[in-house]
């Protein structure tokens, strides 16, 4: 494993864990009572933690693709909750602060790092 791969994995794991921590905190502090969205927070937290562990242990590249897709989904859900609503749930701006901003930054970082990592893998295959 090269230093570059190690650094990328570290960044992806950190991004996943930060987003999971933010969503987990919100789940425990009231969001679990919001229909559908509460369950979504629970699923996101547990899946992100699981992905972070298996990526940290040196799992295969498709785990990065999973992390990328899940993070993109989380960013999309964030956008929906600020615009047309997500299963009838709407929030304003960066509320709840600071968790909204922290998790969004972490998810965008994860998407970027996963894309870079997968690009490297695709290049080495071709």
């Amino acid at each position: 494993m090269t230093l570059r791969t190690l650094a990328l994995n570290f960044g992806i794991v950190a991004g996943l864990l930060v987003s999971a921590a933010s969503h987990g905190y919100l789940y425990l502090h009231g969001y679990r009572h919001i229909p559908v969205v509460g369950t979504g927070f629970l699923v996101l937290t547990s899946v992100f933690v699981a992905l972070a562990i298996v990526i940290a242990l040196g799992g295969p590249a498709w785990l990065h693709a999973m992390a990328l897709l899940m993070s993109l989904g989380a960013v999309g859900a964030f956008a929906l909750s600020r615009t047309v609503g997500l299963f009838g749930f709407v929030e304003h701006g960066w509320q709840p602060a600071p968790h909204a901003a922290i998790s969004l930054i972490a998810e965008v970082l994860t998407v970027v790092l996963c894309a870079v990592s997968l690009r490297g893998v695709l290049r080495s295959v071709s």
Partner: protein
Amino acid sequence: MTSERDPHTMSRRQLIRHGAWFGAAVGLAVVGGEVLSHIATVAPTAQIAQPTLRFAQLSDSHIGFHGTANPDVADSFGRAISQINNLGYTPDFVIHTGDLTHLATPGQFDQVKQMMTGIRTPHIFTVPGEHDSVDDAGQKYRAAFGAGTRGDGWYSFDVAGVHVLGLVNTLNLKKLGHLGADQLEFVEKDLAPLSADTPIIVFSHIPLFAMYPDWGWGTDDATQALSYMRRFASVTCLNGHVHQLFSKTDGNVTFYSATTTAYPLPHPGDGPAPKPLTLPAGQLHDALGIREVTYTKGQGALALKEEKLQ
């Protein structure tokens, strides 16, 4: 004979290895989810055996409505009452967030009041819907349900350390709900002596947030009322009127629209107007329901549990 393998295909060993990674990821996710939900549900109840406050919300029973969207609204309301009576505990109170009747006739008020006497709870509170004040600015409503209220039927009370406001935003309607200067003054004075850590619950019929102003789903002077609540740590606004579940947070305020016991309405913007929806046979009761609300001292947010009509 050669047995060279295509480098792009996967060997059995690789397949097993990938399967193991996948299994590990799924297993960890399931374990993580179990742990988190366990922390969420078991830990608080272990510390505090019983919530500080438990109440139930009913809304939009529209007694007197006749139509294909629900041929028997009285039966549905009776089921909702029965469901509350079988929660397994006696709620501290029950709130009906308006449109008790469909056309505010004396007979409809009499029927809904009689039915509500069957609810097993120490206190029943109501706020009027626009259907409860179609022809008399709410006089018949106040005669039936307005005892102990102020102004045009608004009120406040304290229970279990929580301050509750019942507001009337269905009189003087143009398109949106309206509170009016007198009621805004009442809200300001009512909240002034309270400490900022007092949890606030607000009942109204029409949403206090702009859910869909084109259909009148909002209150034109709610911003003024909410400005008096900004300093409080936790404000929960519960409303009816829109016949569907919807929630929104705005700073310290969380808004929850309730479903109905009568008939569903379309989602905002689905069609030209909010007309009663006739669902396929057997699906009506899934769209109707009641809400349980729990408050535990020390926890900022109220816990809501939505239940479909049984």
